[in-house]
Structure formats: structure tokens, C-alpha cells
């Protein structure tokens, strides 16, 4: 019975925790310009994330080592510095864009500029981490995140043509705005496969004390949870395709996304959109901050645990304190949240090889995962994902310059 509860909680939290600033905004922009054509990018990103979450979870269940631990122990400090530095830079920018998302939701609700909201939001996130346990941070924000199901309700209410929707699941070449199309494809992949997600997930497995007998729960959580999350992200794209595209509204400003749900659900739609954006981004804010502190602490050998009191592992807790408050300060400087979100999603996609490629070695290292090693299927899928990640990396610079909004 305990396992069933844990399983259902795992799936629910991965649904609630899936959407964040990047996935919402890239899906809205994608739907508004290309209709259903980009659904395949969401599907690819979701399958990729499913793969990495299952494997990093398996790594942590079997060896008790998180991804951060394993990267340092298996490859030494000389290599580890690369995922450490790129991970911190990329995660910091994504963290700032998440704080921007929450602040913007508050600005749309109250009219007070997001620059005033940035520091209070960062402080609230810090307070949740300082006082909360891992369970509260992950489960709490994700349960609230279930409000994002409003996008599925809106999508169903619009009665999309399911034939066209499934057609969108097949990769197609764009008829217009080619650079913008591929820029959004890469941003969507970056938004779904974010390194902080599987760093956070594998640390969560260790915090929750999962072991070898939790492998089935881990697999179910990864597959079911992430696929429901992918459906949510697809729903956002479908609604944008049915509301913005026919009207010819292109998303130039973040605030325009506020007009997404009112035509479908009226005032409730507006309020629920603000709630979804605010809660989803707040959950992501807490998760990313923790993931960064995990990466540093695990890599450099500091004691770490969100369940313990902050004074029990001071370097870990002060790391996340500095990170979240610094990101809050960045948003008070008036950085445009839409451009920052798009830019950080592109950077996330470009930084994927640094963590995805090493997973190939980690998941086949008998010393770490014993006979729970990757079967041929796991290796082929991860190999394909690594090649995609490297292609994305090589295309990042030209795409950013040409396709960047």
C-alpha cells in the first residue's frame, strides 16, 4: 500500500512540477506561429526527459549516488568542473527567468511592476527552502502545480481536430520563418530536458531514501509522470494554436500570454492562467535553487540535505541562499523576462551534452549500477539523445543569432 501511495504521489508531483516558465512560453510562442507543427518537439523533449529521469533515478536507487556525485567520482574533478560551471551558469539564468515568471504573474494581477516583485519572490522561495523539507518543496509546490491542468480543460473545450494534432506529432519542415521554427524546436527541447530536473530528481531519490526495491516506482514515476507532464505542455501549445494563431496574435511581450485563456474560459481563465504561471514558476524556482546547491555540495564534498536543518549543513544552505537572492536581484535590474526565458532555454539545450553524454558511461558502469545496467535499448535511446544534444549544441549559436526573438 505504501508503494502505491508513493507511486501515485510521484506521478502527481511530476505532473504538477512539469510546467515552468520555459515550457509555457515556448509552447505559447510555438502554437501562436506554427500551430500544431511543433508538437513533435514537445514529444521528443518529453521522451528524452523520461529516459534521463528513469536512468538517473535508477542510478541513485541502486548506487545511492546522485548524478552530481557520480559525475565527480567516476570522471574526477578535471572533467566535473565542466558540468559544474556550465550547470551553474545555465541554471542561474533559468532560475532568474522563473523568478521573472512569478513576478510577471503578480504584475499582471496587481499592476505593480515585476521589478518590485522580484526580491519578495526570491525571499519567499528562500523561506520555503530554509524552513521546508524536501517533501514540502517537491510535493507541496507540485500539488499546487496541478492548477496547470486548466490548459487541458481549455484545450478540450476548444475541440481541436485530433487528426491535425496527431499530424503535428510527426516532424515536419516549416513553410515559413525557418530560423524561428528551429529556434523554437531547440528551445522546447531545452525547456523539457533541463539538467537541473534530473539532478534534482536523483538527489530526491537519495533524500527520500529509495533503494533497489523502489526501482519499479522510479520507472513508473518517470514514464507516467513525465508523459502526463508532456501532455500538459502540449495542451498549452494546442490552446495557443487555436486562440492566437487564427487571430494572428504573435507573442512579442510576455503579458500577451495573459490573453490565452480568457477567450475560452472567461475571467476564470485569466485568473487560472496567472495562478498557473505563478505557481509553476515558483515551484521551479525552489527546485532549481536546490538543484544548484546539490550540484555544488555533491561535487565538492560538502554535506547536503534539504531535510536537515540549515545549520546542520551551512555551506549547502548558504549556497542556495546566495543563488536565489542573486537571481532575484538580476530580475530587479529590468531584464526583459521573455528574452531571458528564450535565451536561457536555448542555453539549456546547448548545455545538454555535458550531462547527457556522461550518463552513457555511468549507466553502464558495473561498479555503480551493478546488473541494473542499461540494456541495449537504454543505450541506443541515450546514444540517440546524445547525438541530438550535440547537434543542438552546434546549432545553438547560429540559431540564437538568426532565430532569437
Amino acid at each position: 500500500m505504501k508503494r502505491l501511495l508513493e507511486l501515485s504521489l510521484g506521478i502527481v508531483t511530476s505532473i504538477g512540477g512539469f510546467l515552468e516558465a520555459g515550457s509555457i512560453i515556448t509552447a505559447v510562442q510555438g502554437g501562436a506561429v506554427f500551430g500544431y507543427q511543433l508538437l513533435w518537439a514537445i514529444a521528443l523533449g518529453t521522451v528524452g526527459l523520461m529516459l534521463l529521469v528513469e536512468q538517473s533515478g535508477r542510478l541513485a536507487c541502486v548506487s545511492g549516488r546522485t548524478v552530481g556525485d557520480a559525475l565527480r567520482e567516476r570522471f574526477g574533478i578535471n572533467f566535473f568542473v565542466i558540468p559544474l560551471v556550465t550547470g551553474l551558469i545555465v541554471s542561474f539564468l533559468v532560475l532568474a527567468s522563473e523568478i521573472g515568471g512569478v513576478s510577471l504573474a503578480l504584475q499582471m494581477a496587481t499592476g505593480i511592476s515585476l521589478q518590485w516583485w522580484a526580491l519578495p519572490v526570491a525571499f519567499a522561495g528562500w523561506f520555503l527552502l530554509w524552513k521546508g523539507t524536501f517533501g514540502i518543496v517537491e510535493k507541496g509546490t507540485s500539488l499546487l502545480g496541478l492548477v496547470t491542468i486548466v490548459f487541458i480543460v481549455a484545450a478540450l473545450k476548444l475541440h481541436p481536430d485530433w487528426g491535425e494534432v496527431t499530424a503535428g506529432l510527426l516532424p515536419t519542415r516549416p513553410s515559413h520563418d525557418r530560423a524561428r521554427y528551429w529556434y523554437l524546436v531547440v528551445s522546447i527541447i531545452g525547456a523539457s530536458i533541463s539538467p537541473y530536473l534530473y539532478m534534482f530528481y536523483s538527489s530526491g531519490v537519495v533524500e527520500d531514501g529509495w533503494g533497489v526495491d523502489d526501482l519499479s516506482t522510479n520507472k513508473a514515476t518517470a514514464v507516467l509522470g513525465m508523459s502526463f507532464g508532456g501532455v500538459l505542455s502540449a495542451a498549452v501549445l494546442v490552446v495557443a494554436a487555436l486562440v492566437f494563431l487564427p487571430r494572428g496574435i504573435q507573442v512579442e511581450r510576455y503579458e500577451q500570454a495573459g490573453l490565452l485563456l480568457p477567450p475560452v474560459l472567461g475571467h476564470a481563465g485569466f485568473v487560472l492562467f496567472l495562478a498557473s504561471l505563478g505557481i509553476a514558476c515558483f515551484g521551479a524556482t525552489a527546485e532549481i535553487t536546490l538543484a544548484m546547491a546539490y550540484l555544488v555540495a555533491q561535487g565538492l564534498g560538502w554535506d547536503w540535505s534539504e531535510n536537515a536543518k540549515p545549520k546542520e549543513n551551512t555551506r549547502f544552505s548558504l549556497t542556495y541562499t546566495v543563488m536565489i537572492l542573486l537571481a532575484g536581484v538580476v530580475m530587479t535590474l529590468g531584464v526583459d523576462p521573455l528574452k531571458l526565458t528564450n535565451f536561457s532555454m536555448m542555453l539549456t539545450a546547448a548545455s545538454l551534452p555535458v550531462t547527457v553524454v556522461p550518463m552513457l558511461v555511468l549507466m553502464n558502469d558495473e561498479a555503480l549500477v551493478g546488473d541494473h545496467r542499461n540494456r541495449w535499448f537504454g543505450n541506443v535511446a541515450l546514444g540517440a539523445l546524445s547525438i541530438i544534444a550535440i547537434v543542438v549544441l552546434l546549432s545553438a549559436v547560429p540559431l540564437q543569432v538568426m532565430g532569437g526573438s
Partner: protein
Amino acid sequence: MNATMPTLAQAELPLREGPPTMSSSDGGARNASRYGWSWCALVPLVVACGVSDPAKQIERAASWAVTTRELAIERGVGSVGRAYTLDLLDAGRKDIRKIEASLDPAKVPAAVRSQVPGALVELDSTMTRAGDAVRRGNPLLLGAAAAAADSLGHTLESLGEQAGK
């Protein structure tokens, strides 16, 4: 454009990652390797390049016209908040002014060159009228602004298509 992108360390891609190779002997157990360790995808400081293609800019103006219409309609039925509406109208007008400034008449095809500036000015005043209507809470004025924005949307869209050809 107030986006101040944080500068990113520009690091060369480490062809040789990992421990040392040929070590020069300058004494001491010096770790001789030299590799770009803060490698982060070679992304330069990118200032989002202004969209200079006139057809795209006119389409953006058309998008703002439609956004104004939607906003006026939704505000009329009370679906969206007052502060939000004023905030978005304000942001829209800023963007329209940016389009006006960056629209290079030489690049705009002759057929539409005369009509575009006028349409943009009219759109700007329509958005201002819509803002006043919201502030005063006058539904009639708001409806008129919505209609004006709607027709402007169509004209700008057709101008955009002509400019695109």
C-alpha cells in the same frame, strides 16, 4: 529595448578535456595541462537583433492591433483585470513606437510605403483611446476602440502581405 543580457564567459571548446598531456618542465609538480574548463556552448553576448524585415514589422503591428481588439473585448466583458489591460496597452504602444522608429521607408515597397506610417499612428491613438476608455470605465468608448483596432488589424495585415511579396 531594455534587455541587458548578462555577459557569458566566452571559452574555447576544449578539444582535449581531461588530465595533462605533454608537460613543460618549469619545475614543481605543475599540472601542465591547459584546457578551456569554463566551456559553455560558445554563446556570445547576444543583443536580440532587431527584426529589420519590414514585412515582419508590419505583421507585428497587425498582431498588436488584434491584441488591442481582444483586450478591449475581454475587458468589456470583465474577463481580464483593469491593471493588466492598461499595462499591456502601454507595453504595446512602446513596441509600436519602436516599430515606427526602426521602419526604414527605403526598404518598404512603394505600394504600401504611403499607407504604413499613417496606420501606425492611428493604431497608437486607438490604443491610447482604449486606455482612456478603460480608465473611465466607459463601455461605449471601449467598443469603438475595439472596432477601430479590428479594422486596423485587417489593413495592417494586408499591408504586411503586400510588403512581403
